[in-house]
């Protein structure tokens, strides 16, 4: 029986440990390579030589001699490295949320911003910019804190709107998200309209999405947060698989649908709120990367989720590298690069591979 069974199992019909390790291992290596490569590029011509010496100095704890650090090393350590890392984290989170929401909502068009939490976070930041609140609070940047609180409030509001008698109907969730998006975006537009034009231009620039180099305390907090949420999400991968069969079938297979839906909603909303708080709304990553990865390696979420996260991280890192080098020393919003890269690819998927996509 064993050899007969293994025939279709080995043929790639189902996910095996071997395949998982190969794919994830390969993607991890690729991610490391991409990170190192992107550290090479920037508005200034600081390269790997600097990377090496900078890291060496950092490791030797040369803080006391930080005045002796060359500008190029500061550029690498204080600006480029945190930004590249941040880009990877944001891209990974966006892709992971996209995969989860597409499974939860059983809709291939779902992306992280469909929940409505993103406009809450954006509104929080808009309010912060409107009132000109300061820049940092206890070593952490203030804008993201306002954004995160805004996102939380939006999350609670959507949950209250969508849930009924302890259950979370998917169509209510979608509807509440759409409505809240519309209302909160209107508030944001109102804020930009009453702001002095220079300020409002700054706000619009932020909303368009941008990756700025965070300080290390903030980066540490963000890293921890993202990793935590992603790990918990990964636990739900099998449930996500079963969810795609439909809620009733999933329930008949023993999935605690109500609990799982609520957990997934909270996890994705918390992650989306955090992402938007630090980077504005960067589009296309959350929707296109899941499809691209699904096309290549299939729909099993145990592999799809981590693989999409890694590919999303790489995608955004590369896109941001392009965004900050192509018109150097100026930068273009990273959302433009993701849209220009993601748009045509999405078109290709739609025109030639939609049978495999859906």
């Amino acid at each position, binding site marked *: 029986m064993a050899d007969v069974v293994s025939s279709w199992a080995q043929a790639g*019909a*189902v996910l*095996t440990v071997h395949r998982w390790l190969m794919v994830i291992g390969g993607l991890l290596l690729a991610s490391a390579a991409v990170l190192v490569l992107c550290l090479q590029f920037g508005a200034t011509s600081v390269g790997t030589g600097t990377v090496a010496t900078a890291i060496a100095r950092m490791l030797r704890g040369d803080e006391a001699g930080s005045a002796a650090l060359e500008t190029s090393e500061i550029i690498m350590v204080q600006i480029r490295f945190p930004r590249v890392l941040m880009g990877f984290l944001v891209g990974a989170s966006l892709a992971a949320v996209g995969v989860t929401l597409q499974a939860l909502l059983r809709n291939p068009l779902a992306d992280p911003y469909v929940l409505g939490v993103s406009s809450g976070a954006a509104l929080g930041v808009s309010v912060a910019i409107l009132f000109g609140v300061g820049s940092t609070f206890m070593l952490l940047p203030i804008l993201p804190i306002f954004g995160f609180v805004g996102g939380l409030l939006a999350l609670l509001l959507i949950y209250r709107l969508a849930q009924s008698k302890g259950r979370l109907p998917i169509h209510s969730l979608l509807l509440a998200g759409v409505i809240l998006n519309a209302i909160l975006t209107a508030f944001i537009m109102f804020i930009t309209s009453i702001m002095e034009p220079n300020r409002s231009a700054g706000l619009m620039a932020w909303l368009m999405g941008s990756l700025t180099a965070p300080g290390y305390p903030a980066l540490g907090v963000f890293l921890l947060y993202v990793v935590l949420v992603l790990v918990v999400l990964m636990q739900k991968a099998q449930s996500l698989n079963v969810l795609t069969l439909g809620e009733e079938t999933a329930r008949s297979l023993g999935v605690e649908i109500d609990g799982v839906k609520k957990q997934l909603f909270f996890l994705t909303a918390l992650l989306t709120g955090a992402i938007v708080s630090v980077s504005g709304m960067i589009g296309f990553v959350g929707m296109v990367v899941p499809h691209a990865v699904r096309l290549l390696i299939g729909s099993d979420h145990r592999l799809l989720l981590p693989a999409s996260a890694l590919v999303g991280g790489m995608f955004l890192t590369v896109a941001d590298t392009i965004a900050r080098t192509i018109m150097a020393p100026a930068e273009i919003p990273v959302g433009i690069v993701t849209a220009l890269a993601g748009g045509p690819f999405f078109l290709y998927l739609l025109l030639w591979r939609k049978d495999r996509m859906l």
Partner: protein
Amino acid sequence: MTPVPIGATGSWVSVESSAIEAVGLSFRYRTTEGRGRMWTLDDLSFQVDTGEILGIVGPNGSGKSSLLKVLSGLLPVGKGDVRLGGLSLGKWSRTDVARVVAVVPQEYAQVFPFSVAETVLMGRFPHRTARWWSMGIGEETANDFAHVHQAMADTDVLSLADRLVSDLSGGERQRVMIARALAQEPKILLLDEPTAFLDINHQIDICSLVARLRAERRLTVVLVSHDLNVASQYCDRVLMLKEGGLCRIGSPEETIRPDVLRMVYGCDVVVDAHPQTGRPRVTMPMDTVRN
């Protein structure tokens, strides 16, 4: 003897003669409260014997699908009780129910591309041992694979194992869903309109498959059908629903009769005997033209 739900023992402990029992079962959707008909299912009491094939028939809106969902625990009971192996459904955990009862839905619209094997493998979900630190990769045991393999063999989809479900025909898809249900190692199989949307050849395949599975795996089968002939040919007993109430339950000969049908469907039909099996066969009368 007190029946024990499936646990670590993995066996159907209760040896009562009824697999499922409905006792004064009433149900209604929250939205129908205070509107028109009070109860979607009204005070149903019947039992499904172990190893039998029970067919649930009735006009549209009579509550057939709802009854199936309540029996499987997908919808909550309003009044009364449903008992699985003698124990009230409310006392069963969802996972335990999933290890005993498998539901095959009416149709399956796949949103994302999964292979046949992956889909059937999902039927093993209730049998997984969940470890909180792992993602469930590589946790499928040889036993899991064996069941999946057997299920695919029984439903004759083994050759399609690595094909995408979305690439299959309606009949093949239905067989995959049945395979997924079989992978759950159920004792009870519930099918919702298994032959709707299928061509006649596929209908024959499915029906004979179900009959064969009942014999080979000693399953109890409850199937909902709007097709009276399917119910008549393949079921041991037929339950006739009318507006949520139990109109008649009995053998096909007892239930599929012109007088009963007139009462339930409100029209005259021709009922004769199937030339090969002798079971009731329903056909439309000649003078169906109404002015």
